[in-house]
């Protein structure tokens, strides 16, 4: 079966799953089966089919599993968000369509994605500008003590979602060019392999950007995610574990320093280590997140069975259920099994992403695919780890599931880039096979 036919076959069960999910939510809320679930299922399938046919024409050799896996997460997200608030789900569905338009546009305009290399400093600049935007007067917005949003007239978005792609593109390009120098020029000082000072600059820039985020944007999650993606790329590009160790030491030294001096950061860490004394204040969200999971058990309470607000009030029992803590809601309603399915889906996407990187034969493609995949996987880890108390809880979205336009659009652009790399890599693989 051709790659695209496999993709088509995989989309069918995803659409059926979405239909079943909506049916379950309707059954719970109205105590009846509603044709609406079939209609939603049909819409979803139609949108996926349109995307599929676009890929069939434009990227016939691209990885056939990535899009269905992402559609599966989307289906999960749409049903969960619908179950929280039908209005939010409508927005989410609109963003899904808009994201697919941008996804198609990315594929259309960046078919030759090597042009990205040419503009890498511009892209890096745009990325840094986006990072700083929330602190710019007039357009920046503060949410929960963190500067995450930007508002330009009617358009509000979270720039960090987009700047992560810019950062990965820049790093992939920069490291492709300098990796040899970084390896060869490395010197051993006191038994530790240090990168050559001349090429150390960009590393410091990235470290500085991460610290900047930590302190001025107060976006712990994005900061962690960016730096981890950077270290992952640095390791893949150079193969030097010592660089990673140095980088981590720098990050943790910085993080430790700011945790001790910046109250916002300090609170987050304190609440992570010891939430119970803050049960009614800053620890409320993480504790409620864990309590919601405790209530889920192996199989969960079922779709739409979870309490999100305290009955009779508008007070949240599970704060930010549609964004930060949506994973806890999934554990509550679908149980450990449902949660494992979600984690497994992320892992499969990660595996396909790295497969693309392995197949790609030029350095930029390899690093780009690796970086995009890594930043995606780390984002999922940061937020799931946050709500399960593996790491401090931060306001990062769960890719493709959380409510939020910026996240969906940015992640579909990320997916488009991955598929572009994949199409070229697999085309060349197929080509070389036919030649030999």
């Amino acid at each position, binding site marked *: 079966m051709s790659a695209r036919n496999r993709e088509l076959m995989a989309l069918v069960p995803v659409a059926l799953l979405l239909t079943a999910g909506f049916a379950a939510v309707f059954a719970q809320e109205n105590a009846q089966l509603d044709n609406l679930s079939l209609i939603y299922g049909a819409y979803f399938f139609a949108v996926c089919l349109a995307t599929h046919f676009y890929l069939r024409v434009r990227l016939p050799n691209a990885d056939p599993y990535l899009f269905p896996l992402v559609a599966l997460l989307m289906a999960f997200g749409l049903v969960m968000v619908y179950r929280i608030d039908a209005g939010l789900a409508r927005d989410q569905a609109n963003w899904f369509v808009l994201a697919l338009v941008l996804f198609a546009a990315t594929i259309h305009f960046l078919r030759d994605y090597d042009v990205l290399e040419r503009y890498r400093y511009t892209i890096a600049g745009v990325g840094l500008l986006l990072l700083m935007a929330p602190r710019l007067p007039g357009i920046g917005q503060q949410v929960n003590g963190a500067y995450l949003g930007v508002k330009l007239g009617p358009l509000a978005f979270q720039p960090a979602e987009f700047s992560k792609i810019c950062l990965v593109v820049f790093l992939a390009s920069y490291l492709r060019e300098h990796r040899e120098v970084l390896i060869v020029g490395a010197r051993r000082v006191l038994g530790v392999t240090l990168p050559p000072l001349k090429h150390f600059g960009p590393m410091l820039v990235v470290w500085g950007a991460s610290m900047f985020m930590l302190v001025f944007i107060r976006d712990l999650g994005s900061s962690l995610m960016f730096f981890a993606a950077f270290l992952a790329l640095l390791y893949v590009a150079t193969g030097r574990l010592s660089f990673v160790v140095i980088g981590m030491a720098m990050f943790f030294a910085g993080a430790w320093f700011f945790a001790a001096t910046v109250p916002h950061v300090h609170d987050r860490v304190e609440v992570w280590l010891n939430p119970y004394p803050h049960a009614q204040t800053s620890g409320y969200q993480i504790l409620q997140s864990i309590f919601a999971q*405790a*209530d889920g058990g192996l199989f969960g309470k079922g779709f739409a069975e979870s309490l999100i607000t305290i*009955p009779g009030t508008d007070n949240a029992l599970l704060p930010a259920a549609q964004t930060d803590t949506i994973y806890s809601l999934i554990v509550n309603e679908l149980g450990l099994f449902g949660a494992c399915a979600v984690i497994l889906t992320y892992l499969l996407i990660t595996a396909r992403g790295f497969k693309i990187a392995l197949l790609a034969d030029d350095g930029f493609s390899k690093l780009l695919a690796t970086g995009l995949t890594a930043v995606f996987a780390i984002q999922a880890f940061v937020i799931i780890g946050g709500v399960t108390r593996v790491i401090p809880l931060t306001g990062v979205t769960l890719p493709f599931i959380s409510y939020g336009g910026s996240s969906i659009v940015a992640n579909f652009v990320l997916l488009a880039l991955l598929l572009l790399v994949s199409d070229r890599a697999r085309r060349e693989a197929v080509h070389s096979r036919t030649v030999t």
Partner: protein
Amino acid sequence: MNRQIIKLFGLLVVLFAVLVGFTSYWSVFDASALREKNANKRPLLEQQQIQRGRILAADGTVIARSVAKGHGSGKRYVRRYPRGRLYGHPIGYSFVQFGDSEFERFHNDELVGNESEFNSILDQLRGRDQQGNDIVTNLDPAAQATALADLEAAGYGAVVAIEPKSGRVMAMASNPPYDPNRVPYEFSKLSTNEIETPLLNRATQGQYPPGSTFKVVTAAAGLESGTITPETPIDAPGSLEVEGTPLENDFGESFPGATLDTALTNSVNTWFGQLGQRLGEDTLFEYMEKFGFNSTPAIDLPSGEVYKSGVFNEEGELLGANDPVDLARVAIGQERLAVTPLQMAEVAAAVANKGKLMKPQIWSRVVDPDGRVTKRLDPSQYSQPISAKTAEELTTAMEGVVAEGTGTNAAIPGVRVAGKTGTAETPGNKACGGGEEENQAWFIGFAPADDPKIAIAATVECTEEFGNDVAAPIFRDVAETILNGE
């Protein structure tokens, strides 16, 4: 670079495995501990979403029901007790913030519909909300009202009325009462009141000296063990030296060659003291235990809210047959005996039911939301402490008490009544304000003696009067109410 990519993937697999590990820990392994946390209101809020079943009196009077508040996702149920304090004991209360007690607590699973995991999964598949079952009790509203009204007129204390042949609890009142509807507003006031202790069900948690009502147990042990027959004479002097202190009869009256009837009718202390000594500790404790002493009564109330009866040492520990006790004084209900009104009602009920003690039960049947009776009380025997013959002989003696002895105020015109009074002196009792003339007044008995329909224990604490003056009239009123109701 491929080698590094594969290693990086390996690291991510490990990280994701950590996520699965933590999720499993919270959702499965540590789940029950988390559900117990004080900060975790989720289980309570969820229970509030379920319409708890009603609790009904025997005639269908609604004792407790749940009313919906709010709409849509804000809908929740709050407990209402239409009859207020009348059924505060033994029904108890159930509120999300303040927990639950007594009958509401014991029957929680049935009331919220948690019958089985399987059923609730079926209901979920059918898209049905979990709904509670109604429980019909054996409580007789008229008898309950009489018991509480009489107690409130007489003083703090308790009344327990049991149908002897089935163990059905037809009335259980405790004074001072409390209105369960007020629990959400006055919880701290109710729960910290150490003198009145309105939340304490004195019927099951009041531990009082039984006084002479205990002579019924001593007599039962004497007859059943063959130590005496109804014709056995025992010389009962006005005063008897026991363990260094004199044991005295009322007014120092002596009863030479008295038999059981005379001794019980006149509540002769020196007669029963000697009987106790003849029985020996093993035999007396054996029969006490058969009547239910030294065990938690098998009633449908939370075991933590039903106290044991027996001889307690100063540390509050129950004594057994091998511990040194003043047997003569145990035999007349003194020493360190402490009993609950429920236990004494069980003694009366066992004698009334030809020696068979039935398990006392408040519930009668469980009715599911569709109106089907899913469970029905099947009366079961707890023990048979004495034979039918012994019971009959004892009944005759107890009839004498009411007909011509110390318990004449329990008499009901046209009905044969069997009973026994008790007046334990409790001088200096802190709960009574430390007065020197304070008594614990008792009456236990059953009626009609030839075909018992009801066995009752009534007790009043901190009274200067005797059992016949304050407790026997309560017995009479409650028994009459029940007999007239039939």
